[in-house]
């Protein structure tokens, strides 16, 4: 059907055409108050069409996928293109065909046959050894995609995933949150997630009001994933041009401390967001975005790459190039070694609601949630609540003094692009709290 769509589009005058047929089979169990609240299942197919008629760019999404509906949709797009103005800087899509390497670790049939309720029970029971209450979600999915382009690319991919997000509560204001995300059942560990969430909740016992300060902060992977993921997304050439990025005009310049190297590893074996080709059919690759603190490249599709006189980084998004697996490269010390060196500080285990005053300057604030533990001489000595990180993202990246040696996957409600990262230590982080 996608080949049919490409031929039809070309017949009607499209100069570039991409057709992607995506199939999603997904199951979900939601739970709260130690009981399952709903079980849900998705069986969805979508055909996405992206066409250019002499640089007039149009797109559509189809739920009904028949030759008749494709004919009608392409005729409609051809008509729409007549109204559109040309995007003169559109550089077209990639010229194929391409050879695709087999990326290991993306499909595990066992995920589709496992008892999901058992996994939820295991996670909850593990958490309830220390905690009083649990809430969360479990997903298991099989996704497939087939793509064809007028540039001669034709590819297909299929993957599975399983992920659990669990929040445990010991009492009011005493909570912890942990995850297990994997492409294979063997690497999925719901008990460990339940156990970590409950441990954090128990350590957060009796939190007191936090105080404004500039202090050392040890970020749990879950807490720093949002910021690492945003940094990688801000490397999108589209965001740079749209005013949505502090990385504009910073190529080759320092944007983080030398301890920070961020890559997009779209082709990583077993990566949670791994795909073997991007949205124009280019085989995915690993791209160093920030190398030892210096901005190395923006993320590109073929069109944005032409504008910057570089090669595509295989990150299409046909409009907005984007990362698939953001990796914050690990350092050499363990989390415990880093923790032992902190005289006074906070261990922030999770954040949410990150919002920017200005994407160009990267002034922002984000709110720690769940356990916020007070560190004194390398030990947890208490917990606080009702504080906020009020910072500048570039400045915060430059305040990073250490990155631990064991990365973990983070993908959940607040972090939609998978991030693989270790613990992060930053110094003199600006902490604020309500003035009244």
């Amino acid at each position: 059907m996608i080949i049919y769509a490409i031929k039809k589009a070309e017949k009607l005058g499209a100069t570039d055409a991409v057709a992607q047929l995506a199939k999603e089979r997904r199951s979900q169990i939601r739970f709260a108050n130690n009981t399952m609240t709903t079980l849900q299942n998705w069986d969805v197919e979508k055909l996405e069409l992206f066409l250019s008629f002499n640089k007039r760019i149009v797109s559509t999404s189809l739920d009904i996928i028949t030759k008749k509906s494709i004919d009608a949709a392409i005729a409609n797009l051809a008509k729409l293109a007549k109204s559109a103005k040309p995007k003169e800087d559109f550089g077209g899509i990639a010229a194929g065909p391409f050879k695709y390497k087999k990326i290991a670790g993306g499909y595990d049939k066992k995920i589709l046959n496992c008892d999901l309720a058992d996994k939820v029970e295991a996670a909850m029971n593990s958490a309830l050894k220390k905690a009083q209450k649990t809430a969360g979600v479990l997903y298991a999915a099989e996704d497939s995609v087939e793509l064809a382009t007028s540039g001669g690319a034709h590819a297909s991919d299929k993957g599975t995933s399983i992920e659990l997000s669990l929040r445990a509560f010991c009492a009011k204001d005493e909570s912890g949150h942990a995850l297990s995300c994997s492409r294979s059942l063997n690497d999925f560990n719901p008990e460990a997630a339940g156990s970590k969430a409950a441990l954090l909740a128990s350590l957060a016992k009796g939190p007191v009001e936090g105080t404004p300060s500039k202090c050392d902060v040890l970020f749990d992977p879950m807490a720093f994933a949002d910021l690492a993921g945003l940094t990688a997304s801000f490397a999108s050439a589209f965001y740079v041009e749209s005013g949505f990025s502090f990385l504009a005009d910073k190529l080759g310049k320092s944007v983080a401390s030398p301890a920070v190297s961020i890559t997009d590893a779209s082709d990583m074996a077993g990566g949670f967001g791994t795909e073997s080709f991007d949205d124009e059919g280019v085989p995915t690759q690993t791209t160093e975005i920030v190398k030892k603190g210096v901005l190395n490249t923006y993320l590109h599709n073929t069109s944005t790459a032409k504008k910057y006189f570089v090669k595509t980084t295989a990150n299409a998004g046909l409009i907005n190039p984007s990362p698939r697996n953001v990796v914050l490269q690990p350092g050499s010390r363990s989390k415990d070694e880093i923790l032992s060196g902190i005289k006074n500080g906070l261990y922030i285990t999770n954040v949410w609601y990150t919002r920017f005053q200005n994407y160009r300057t990267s002034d922002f604030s984000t709110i720690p949630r769940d356990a916020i533990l007070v560190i004194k001489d390398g030990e947890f000595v208490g917990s606080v609540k009702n504080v906020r990180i009020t910072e500048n993202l570039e400045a915060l990246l430059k305040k990073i003094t250490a990155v631990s040696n064991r990365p973990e996957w983070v993908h959940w409600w607040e972090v939609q692009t998978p991030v693989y990262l270790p613990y992060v230590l930053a110094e003199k982080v600006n902490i604020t709290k309500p003035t009244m």
Partner: protein
Amino acid sequence: MVAGGIAEFALKAAAKADYAEARFESARVNEFTLKNGVLEVSESSETQGLCVRVIVKGAQGSAFTNLLGKPSVKAAVSRALKLAKQSAKIVKDPVELSVEKPGKADYSVAQRIPLADVSSDLKIRELINIDRALLSAGVKLPARFLTLRDETKEKYYVNSDGSNIRSKIPRVLFDYMLTAAADGKTVQRMFSFGASAGWEAFKKWSLAEKLAEEAGMLGKILATAQPCPSGELDVVLSPELVGIASHESVGHPYEADRILGREAAQAGESFVTRELLGTKIGSDVVNVVDDPRLPGSYGYYLYDDEGVKANRRYLIKNGIITSFLQNRWSASRFGIPSNGSARANNWDAEPIVRMANTYVMAGDHSTEELLRDVKKGIYIKSYMEWNIDDKRFNQRYTGLEAYLIENGELKHLVRNPVLEITTPVFWSSVDAVGKNVEYVAGNCGKGEPMQGIPVWFGGPHIRLRKIKFGEHV
């Protein structure tokens, strides 16, 4: 199968469930994005799909599909039933729904200029005109991002209690993000206009004039804004600030599913408990409601996605917590009827407790009167960054266009005033409320998977006394 037929067929197939509902939705969507004066992409899509939700022995199962042949629909219903039956053995806390009068209705929003009659040509021309108006403002705007989206959504909802509801709601949304620059500094402004209406809503917004004016203001902020004073100051907040505060710190914490813990791992819980019903949370002049029935509103509906008739609900009346937003599950837990707050953003999402149009009700002060009694204070007209914790207790708004008030008069612009304040203090500090209510459009996020849903939030100007301003980034 036609729309109604698909939903009816699914409901019939689910007859073995203790409760079943089917919701078929179709939508026609057009979207145009202009980046720095250049049309980035034009999108035109028609989407459709089905949600089937069943309850069997206290266990709830749902299936979502856009494969709409009879065998596929039957398979989807079977999956929902199977999920519910399997989990019925292990669910510790059965799902029950409040008893409601079945809703029966067929309604639509009238369009003076139907969206279907407006050409793509015209929509693109309008965006280009707005961009030209921006450039004429005499301010350096290196990044201009304009998006126009219109959507006409039809729903057909049936349930085993006898509800049968059809609706057709057109919506128009205009989003923009501007970056203004001068002397190596930048400021950014993001805002949305939205309505449930035809093209007449877009025309009424007079966007070219408004955005040109706004661009001029961004230039003034860059050129003239002075540091914000610190210390104890009175604050006058515009409808834009009042709207976001009512949405974030009244609407969200009054969602009964949060209060009951169902959203604890995602959108969070609430500092408000059911024991706080009837207690004081704000000053006597604070009245906050949520009303899905506001004509033309972006969050408009007359029946919710569980077939319950929508009504206005008082969240705060004279400073007292009066009621929560309820769907049939939460209402059952509270032992009361639902107040029609169940919404799903699309066919592929479950209905959960949501706001519609949340606002502070009008008081009796003119804006001049609110300012007149302020010896020293800050007037915040628009904002940039904002956030609130997941219990909805600790909130923050950073002003964009904001002025110093001295002896009842607006003085110079001030830079980045930060209101970082707890919710009870915020609403208890309100001593006067303005007369004229205005609304802002937004897409509110909640649910797992995330559902962005159209809402309005608003209010009149309000005045808060003795607010501490500190040192911030």
